[in-house]
């Protein structure tokens, strides 16, 4: 598959000023963005909307997430605007919006899409405006709140239910613009994508390469059928309100593939944020996720779960390396993205442990 890694969310809040380009241009840039978003909403049937940017939820290499107020017909509607940087190609915003809407109407908690475009006036980059749902998404805040409220198992179950609903959608209903893994050889296809990403990185990463070649030699069972996969379903992209799942965010990596990818990705050690004893996102036990997924008619394939854990660990190692490479190449001056380069060994360490758990310390 071709969807490249490096969705560069830091998962932390950021000042609105950091969302723009140079500090001197911030005020002008902000006004231009507000006008462009108002025009976008007008094109989607809003009556004389006025947009005010009130803050930023997160800023990554790939997109910034801004909090906005929309004033229209004497009402002020709080919403969220997501602006892509265009540094890394992702699903077109209009296709992403169609997936969100399909998921939402199928019972997956997701925001309502208010407007979307593949080329926002001014920047020419993809943008979408969605409803602002209640809750927390910053990982450490989410994990603290869930731990205090004691809702970790329930939240893990809600994740299992949401994924079962997403994966239960007839794949024929998926928007045609979605990437699809090769149905006959999805695992080889995925490995080709990882290898191509490694080839594009300026520095050699033999540990990840070793992992990719191991993955290629050890494919799991095929899924009964391919499904829509969110592909970024993890702590940080889950909005949690009062300890419960409020909305699934950030659908830009959605594609058609193996449903077990979503369950495995949620359980990577890197998304546990130090709560290593709670494999589901650092907040819940694995059996709660699995039980709810199977109760929702999802089919759990253990071999694929473990394969995708290793595959997505390799993918995120590539993503972090790509963020550091973007800094080195001068595409960003973010210290957060620069620091990502020093996190690569964490993912490499996880990758080696996952491989050795499968094969023993000598196995490859």
């Amino acid at each position: 598959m071709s969807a490249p890694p490096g969705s560069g969310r830091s998962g932390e809040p950021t000042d609105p000023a950091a969302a723009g380009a140079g500090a001197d241009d911030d005020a002008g840039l902000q006004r231009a963005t507000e006008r462009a978003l108002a025009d976008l909403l007008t094109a989607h049937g809003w009556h004389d909307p006025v947009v005010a940017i009130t803050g930023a939820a997160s800023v990554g290499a790939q997109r910034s997430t801004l909090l906005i107020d929309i004033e229209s017909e004497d009402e002020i509607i709080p919403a969220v605007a997501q602006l892509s940087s265009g540094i890394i190609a992702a699903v077109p915003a209009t296709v992403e919006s169609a997936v969100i809407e399909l998921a939402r109407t199928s019972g997956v908690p997701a925001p309502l899409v208010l407007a979307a475009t593949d080329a926002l006036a001014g920047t020419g980059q993809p943008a979408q405006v969605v409803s602002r749902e209640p809750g927390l998404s910053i990982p450490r805040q989410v994990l603290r709140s869930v731990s205090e409220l004691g809702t970790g198992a329930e939240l893990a179950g809600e994740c299992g239910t949401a994924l079962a609903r997403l994966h239960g959608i007839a794949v024929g209903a998926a928007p045609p613009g979605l990437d699809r893994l090769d149905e006959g050889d999805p695992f080889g296809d995925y490995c080709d994508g990882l290898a191509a990403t490694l080839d594009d990185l300026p520095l050699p990463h033999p540990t990840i390469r070793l992992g990719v070649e191991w993955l290629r030699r050890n494919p799991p069972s095929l899924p009964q059928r391919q499904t829509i996969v969110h592909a970024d379903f993890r702590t940080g992209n889950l909005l949690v309100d009062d300890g419960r799942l409020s909305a699934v965010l950030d659908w830009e990596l959605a594609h058609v593939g193996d449903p077990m990818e979503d369950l495995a990705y949620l359980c990577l050690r890197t998304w546990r944020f130090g709560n290593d004893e709670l494999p589901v996102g650092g907040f819940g036990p694995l059996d709660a996720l699995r039980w709810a997924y199977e109760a929702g008619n999802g089919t759990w394939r253990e071999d694929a779960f473990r394969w995708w854990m290793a595959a997505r660990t390799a993918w995120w190692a590539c993503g972090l390396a790509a963020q550091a490479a973007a800094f080195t190449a001068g595409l960003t001056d973010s210290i957060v993205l620069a620091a990502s380069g020093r996190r690569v060994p964490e993912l490499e360490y996880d990758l080696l442990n996952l491989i050795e758990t499968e094969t023993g310390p000598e196995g490859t």
Partner: protein
Amino acid sequence: MGDEPSAEALLLAMAATVADQVVPATSGGAAHAARVVANLCRILAREVVDPGDDVAVDLRVLLGADGRGDTERFEGVDTTGLLAALDDRLRDGDAEFAMEALPLVRRDVERRLAISRPSYLDDRP
């Protein structure tokens, strides 16, 4: 020898200053960036004190011992060049070679992790 304080002492003092004074005085993205800076200072402090054992010598042996090249071919090649050569060899998908490379690869990952986040090494799933 340079002047006092040492690079390590300065980096640790910088980390403490940023973490104890700048982080509490800021919020949002600036506070997050400051926390990241403090952590990078601690990483660099560990790196200047003990960067760990370079794997270049063992890489030359590994790459030269497979009958496809000779050890001399890798004389004078720096660690990055050797890692690129290792990457090339692993790309062939030779399972036996990957098995031979695994201990060395793990040692280098653990060396870098001991610098960037030593606490991560304690847990082996």
